[in-house]
């Protein structure tokens, strides 16, 4: 019924996958589908061979029914990812720009629509894996909570963030307590 304590610290991988399914993605419909009223929002009519933007979950259903082709986002491309990988290697202090949910998005897109890929799926996967490891290493070594007031972490991905959030949060909280105690002592 209730939630356990760890759920107030971070989101689980399946919850993140759920959140990522709301990201919008471009598809190339194979057949027409008239306008749909989902009550809270409206999906405009899909026309065959005209690009449309739809939520990822909707794209996946259409894809499974063979009713659309998924257009890969610009960043999900081996050449682009390699330049990111290079930039990532050069700069040890920050994260190169990728969408916040890059891991969840690429997992779903590659699993559901490998055949729609313009380049080599294996190459993209390999580069993604290298990126993932490099960034994780960076997180393990580089992120130092040496400050009780704030830590800036631009460019971090959701999977990475939720992995380190519990420990970072706890560390910063401890530092705050120590700092408060010091201040009391000096007064």
């Amino acid at each position, binding site marked *: 019924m*209730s939630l356990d304590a760890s759920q*107030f610290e971070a989101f689980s991988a399946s919850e993140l996958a759920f959140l990522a399914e709301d990201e919008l993605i*471009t598809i190339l419909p194979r057949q027409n589908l008239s306008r749909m009223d989902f009550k809270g*929002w409206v999906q405009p009519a899909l026309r065959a061979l005209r*690009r449309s933007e739809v939520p990822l979950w909707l794209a996946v*259903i259409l894809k499974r*029914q063979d009713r659309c082709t998924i257009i890969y986002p610009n960043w999900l491309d081996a050449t682009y990812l390699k330049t990111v990988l290079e930039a990532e290697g050069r700069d040890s202090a920050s994260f190169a720009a990728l969408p916040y949910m890059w891991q969840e998005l690429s997992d779903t897109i590659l699993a559901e629509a490998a055949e729609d890929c313009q380049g080599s799926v294996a190459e993209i996967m390999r580069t993604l894996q290298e990126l993932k490891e490099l960034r994780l290493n960076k997180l393990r070594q580089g992120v130092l909570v040496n400050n009780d007031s*704030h830590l800036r972490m631009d460019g*971090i991905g959701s999977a990475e963030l939720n992995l380190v959030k519990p420990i*970072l949060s706890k560390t910063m909280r401890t530092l705050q307590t120590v700092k408060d105690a010091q201040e009391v002592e000096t007064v």
Partner: protein
Amino acid sequence: MNLDLESIINSVGRRGTRTRAEYTTAPAQRLKQWWVAERMAPHLLEYQLDLLNEVITNCRSLRDYIEETSLTLLDEAAVESLGEETLRDVKIKLLLVETELERAKFVARAYKRTRMAKIDLLPYYYLQQQESQSGIMSKDEWVYCHHRTELEASSYYKGFLNAFPTELQGLTDEDGHISMIETPDMDKPVVVRVNTDIGTLKIGSEEVELVKNGVYLLRFSAVSDYLEFVDIL
């Protein structure tokens, strides 16, 4: 070639941005943001009664659509009059609506469950807050919280409190220096993405400039007055 050009124009045109704006501001999507924030924030956030009602009303309409459509699909004569292509469209729309309904229901349930779990953690505190600051809990949440504390108190009383002197039986005493009511840790660090330039805030002993699109780990109390300008991650 022609088709391609047309699709490129369409993809950058108004059509795309309209979907984006409409989908991301749909009630279920907004409630989802509140669910995420509620999970990470140390104390109960303002109850989103109107938003939740909107989501529930939408869910009912979707459910009605599903019932109607399913009935039509059971009617052989009606199915035959539809034609094969329309039938396929009807079926896939049914599938899409069912999925949207389940997603919205999940968000609504997750939101309510998160709040209940938070009430479970600090029930006496929220009861006390409700008196001074009505609106922090919904009516049903208040009833739940109230019953919960009563049950707990009577169970403790029967179990062991009745053996104590009367002046030591209270569960919410505030005499002396230390209150018995546990309070949330407002300094719990949270991660936020800033969506508007906020400017410089004094956090602890330091001054921190919060820049648009910046992602920061900082104590909740520092941004609790700026919740509309940040997205809790």
